[in-house]
């Protein structure tokens, strides 16, 4: 196996950390308190469709 390329990690170590927060809003607020540039994504589970309904939707969409 070839050696993994760490260049993207080294770049991160030199850049300003900018964070996309997905999930707990609390963590977004804690990041903002630190003055970190961040954006919060309100995440919700996709509604679970019944199989039949899903098949019909796949056909028509």
């Amino acid at each position: 196996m070839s050696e993994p390329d760490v260049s993207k990690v080294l770049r991160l170590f030199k850049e300003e950390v900018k964070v996309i927060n997905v999930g707990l809003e609390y963590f977004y607020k804690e990041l903002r308190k630190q003055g970190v540039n961040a954006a919060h994504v309100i995440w919700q589970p996709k509604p679970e469709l019944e199989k039949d309904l899903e098949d019909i939707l796949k056909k028509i969409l």
Partner: protein
Amino acid sequence: MARVKNIVKTNFFRDSVQLLHLSEEVKKLKGVIDAALAMGTELNKELLEKEGLLTEEGRRASENDMIIAVKAEDSADIHGIIREIEELLTRPAESGETYYYSIESALKALPGANVALVSVPGKYAKDVVMEFINRGIHIHLFSDHVPLEDEIELKKAALEKGVLVMGPEAGTSIINGVALAFANVVDRGPIGIVAAAGTGLQETSVLITRGGSGITQGIGVGGRDVKSPVGGMMTLFSMRALEADENTEVITIVSKPPSPDVQEKIVNLIRDKGRKKYVTCFIGGQEFSIPVELKGRLVQTNTLHAASLESIRFVSNSLYEKALERISLPPEKVAKIVEDELSKLREGQRYVRGLFTGGTLLYESQVIFKEFLGDVWSNTPLNKDFTLPNAWISKEHSVIDLGEEEFTAGRAHPMIDPTIRLQRIVQEAKDPETAVIMLDFVLGYGSHPDPAEAHLSAIKKAKEIASDSGRHLTILAHVVGTERDPQNALEQENKLRKAGVILLPTNALMALVAGMIAKGDSSERTARNFFEKYLVGRR
């Protein structure tokens, strides 16, 4: 007189931290004596019952429903209060904050985003994380219950793209000084940490800072990373990155004992590719033989205390001498603390009760107790035969991880919400056989804004319960924090000290003191032997 009212909102979800904050706001409303907003899990219903906040209506709530529980003064306008609560629940996000409904739109709003902090329920994490991996964005994955096969798939994909997947179940990372999830404000310096143990990373980065040095990065990889199925993928990748990082001089690896094959990979990577200095801290692991080529360049330790000091020693010998004074105690001082406490305890007071919020700190304590007390009871014991039949009730020597599932279903983590620990402190004080209560206070971003203050009344009550029965109660605490943390560690320590709590500078020393008290051994020699075995590294 007071009235208690419950309202159940069916199929209504708010996360545990939001509910905690809402509860605090409701308590401030006029006419309200006490209040709690909680999802209707069995645990929450039990706690509401204990607090006298549950009615018949609340009892019928399911875990998908939210319970609004209010205790109000008789004269209060209860309908007005409920209206105000409804308004709080539907209040839009704070002004000036824009939130996004897709990763795509968030990325447009924040060009150049390079880290994603993901805390969605574990079964959904893979899809979310994969989106970031495909875009070349590094991920800190806080979620638990991520299926093992998902973790393996994600980490393989991440290695192909050259990005970090820190987690799942990673409580802590510190990247370029930024605290991700639960982490402290620590100093920058030449030590890079890779940790498969969340509070292990917090304790180590804090001790290194308080010892006078600092860290380049603190990369949390999640506890399962060092086990065979995942094979150390992110541990090894992070080690390679820190090895190539020009600012890192010392690389410190912290975890519970890895699987033997993973431990071998770690040591082999250091031997074959490492040019820097390394400290391993496999807490409670077996001593391994250091390859001859690595003599002088690799030190192995078995406590977070030793790992922090040895990392600093690699930076400079003179700094190490200063660090000893700052974050350790001489053995004679330890023996003196034990002797003083033993002289106050009565016969029959023989048990330790450790109430922990940090899983790694609890684990380390159990490893240390093995030396003095053998196996101890726990909800996460080292030896499965010592699993507490009921985690809510201690037995003989017991150490409790309050961050485990049975205490957190539908509730915020005890580092944020101390309610359960406060009740437990009082409960332990009532037991005439309790000699020592141990408490960890984990500060930093993510944690409660003033945990010491929140504990003061419970500590006072516990001491009173003991003294009313003619007993002394030893309460030990260790604060994982720095002066620059939002809670200010020094202020937190002062508050606790004023309340009669004995502060120890490291978790290992807290466990040592507790272990010696429980064993009734205050000899300096015992302390000295312990220091040699646990608080310095093997070369």
